[in-house]
């Protein structure tokens, strides 16, 4: 399919990326200021991936390469009116809040966005949602293996504390 797409078959490429589109949109949504921005970033990601498909190196997973492009596109879309991840605390305007199905508890990814840096948040997402290996995450973030391991561990420690805090809040609310 990759070879057909490289030769100019848009249909083959659309089929190739079909399995990744929803996951990519969800990932981009967590990094965008609006749903429209996330959709634009996805469109740009797929167009760039198709245009530069010849540069894809088969030693990496295709998803690793796509996520690398997606991160670059999301960064390009960060205009003056776009805020940093940690500043998206206003749930009214946060596109991620609107897409979260009703839960009895606080969604940990919303807390993660406030607590973690952009890169650590991305590393955590790729690890625990996309099931990427440490090697792949390091490749996506263009960081060393040791940096990736240490920052994943830091992210985990931060979120473990956050998880405990959320559990305490729930208990205190339950007991009035």
């Amino acid at each position: 399919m990759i070879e057909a797409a490289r030769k100019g078959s848009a249909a083959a490429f659309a089929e190739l990326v079909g399995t990744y589109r929803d996951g990519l949109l969800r990932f981009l949504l967590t990094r965008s200021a609006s749903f429209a921005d996330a959709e634009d970033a996805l469109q740009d990601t797929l167009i760039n991936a198709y245009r530069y498909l010849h540069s894809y190196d088969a030693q990496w997973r295709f998803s690793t390469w796509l996520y690398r492009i997606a991160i670059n596109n999301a960064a390009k879309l960060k205009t003056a009116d776009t805020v940093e991840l940690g500043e998206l605390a206003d749930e009214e305007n946060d596109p991620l809040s609107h897409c979260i199905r009703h839960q009895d508890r606080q969604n940990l990814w919303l807390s993660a966005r406030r607590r973690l840096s952009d890169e650590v948040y991305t590393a955590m997402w790729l690890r625990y949602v996309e099931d990427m290996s440490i090697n792949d995450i390091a490749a996506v973030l263009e960081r060393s293996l040791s940096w990736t391991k240490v920052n994943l561990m830091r992210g985990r420690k931060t979120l473990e504390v956050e998880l405990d805090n959320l559990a305490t809040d729930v208990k205190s609310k339950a007991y009035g």
Partner: protein
Amino acid sequence: MDKLAKRLREDAAHIECAVSDELDDRIRASLENIKPQQPAEPRRSARPPAFWWASSLTGVAAAIVLIAVLNLQEPEPAIPTTEPVAQQLVIPSIEWQAETAVLVSPLEQEFEDLQSDLKKAEEALREDIERLF
């Protein structure tokens, strides 16, 4: 799977978003209008291989001629100096009015303590990383 990983997966599954038909049409239309770039072919050298041999030999010949010309020239007579250079330099003498502080022993102790702390922290970090991954 540990508690945190489980919670992160569950909470990610609660984020509902999918590519709409409208966006799908937009993406497909964009893809139809562009062509993937083809890898650039390696540039062919405009010069024949013999050129590099010829230029290398010319360079070597020029170097030999230059060495020969420089060695055939008579060396210039050395002008004797009346005074050694070292003697011409005047080093101002500075009188330090300070007492020597005996700080070596506490600093060494501090340094050893810090090294020990660092080693402990490094071991703890390594254990954590090994445990997690």
